[in-house]
């Protein structure tokens, strides 16, 4: 291959316009460490980058926030899967049908000499306990997977909710997807008084607020609530949190604590 041809391939490669066969030829040159090919490519890449940089602009912070949240959720989901796998590994031998049969047979044998009932009960209880534990982990995994699914969808938006005079230090963050709903996480809200709870509202323009769920917070003011999608209309553009009677009310009556716009 002569120099002209190498430079021509480098130009097409930098533009991302080579056909598959040419691309394979040029990549073979690069992989072989061809000095001319690398130099020509570096040169054209800089030009292409300058063309691309022509209209560089700062992205809105929500894009990065959503990406970092996706990364964190992925990390947590991996942790949950690992925990679940290790739990299944430790419990599997006891839960396999063969083992249960053996345990049953053993229990029956021991019952024949009048102590079996006690042993059988102990094993049953242990199996029950492990079953519940596995179900809890499965639910946690499902919840995490649901969250990851929401986060992985580029249509997911992150809405920051700011504290109002009733709780100026409170903050909230809503991950919102028009089709699958969202997840609100709050911090810094004062614990709700007896008989009261926080209620989330989805508001679309000038329409009446739609109740989106009731939640409480722990001693640190941390709370979270899974939110169903809002049916019909243009979808909500604002989310707000008010303090209401514990069962929730159809229209807001109490003070507003948090508000944020999509």
């Amino acid at each position, binding site marked *: 291959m002569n120099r002209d041809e190498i430079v021509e391939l480098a130009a097409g*490669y930098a533009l*991302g*316009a080579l056909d598959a066969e040419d691309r394979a030829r040029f990549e073979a040159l690069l992989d072989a460490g061809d000095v001319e090919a690398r130099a020509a490519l*570096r040169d*054209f890449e800089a030009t*292409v980058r300058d063309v*691309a940089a022509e209209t560089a602009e*700062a992205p809105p912070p929500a894009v*990065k926030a959503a990406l970092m949240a*996706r990364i964190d959720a992925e990390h947590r989901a991996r942790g949950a899967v690992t925990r679940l796998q290790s739990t299944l590994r430790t419990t599997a031998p006891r839960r396999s049908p063969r083992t249960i049969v053996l345990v049953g047979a053993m229990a029956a044998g021991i019952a024949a000499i009048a102590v079996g009932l006690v042993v059988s009960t102990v094993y049953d209880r242990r199996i029950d306990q492990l079953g519940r534990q596995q179900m809890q982990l499965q639910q946690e995994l499902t919840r995490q997977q649901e969250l990851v699914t929401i986060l992985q969808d580029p249509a997911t938006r992150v809405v920051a909710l700011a504290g109002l005079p009733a709780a100026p230090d409170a903050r909230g963050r809503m991950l919102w997807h028009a089709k699958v709903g969202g997840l609100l996480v709050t911090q810094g809200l004062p614990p709700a008084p007896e008989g009261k709870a926080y209620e989330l509202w989805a508001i679309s323009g000038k329409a009446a607020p739609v109740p989106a769920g009731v939640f409480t917070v722990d001693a640190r003011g941390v709370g979270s609530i899974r939110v169903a999608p809002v049916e019909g209309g243009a979808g909500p553009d604002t989310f707000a949190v008010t303090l209401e009677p514990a069962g929730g009310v159809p229209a807001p009556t109490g003070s507003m604590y948090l508000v944020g716009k999509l």
Partner: protein
Amino acid sequence: MQGVDVPLSDAPASLLARIAQGDRDAFSRFYDAFAGLALGLIRRILRDPGAAEEVLQEVFWQIWQEAPRYDPLRGSPEAWLVMRAKTRAIDRLRAMRRREKTFVASVDEAVASAPDLPTENPGVAAERRGLVRSALDGLPEAQRRVVELAFFEGLSQSEIARRLGEPLGTVKTRARLGLERLRNAMRREGERQE
């Protein structure tokens, strides 16, 4: 980007190597350094701010997941990112055109009119935009068309040849001549401004 073999901690290649290990902080820095570059290109191709932000997120998610596959022999990290941004934006453009043909301005229009978009530093960006614009405008029409069809419409060289009714060899030569002239023009302008 020079010196890939001896990466500094914040050099793009070094950041990508750390991202490949799952380093969240390196990803954050890489994003801060290059998201603006990617978004500008994506918006130029798509001209729909909402869709452009979605594509930007997809592109960087892809970076997070595919960083282990980055091969420094095949180009700089910036070029790797630019190519992903371009490919994703063009995929989206084609999908949008299929759905709603009038939704997106034609590429000719997108390229011909300078986008009226907010920028991080309007003064510097306008200066640079003028530089690239005038360099592009300075290309002979036939070369400019090939560069734009390749870069902003994502056509391969054989697709461009078919579109323009020209031999493939001519298209290849024009792509090369076009990029060389663009490079030289921008170098001259850059030197003059220094």
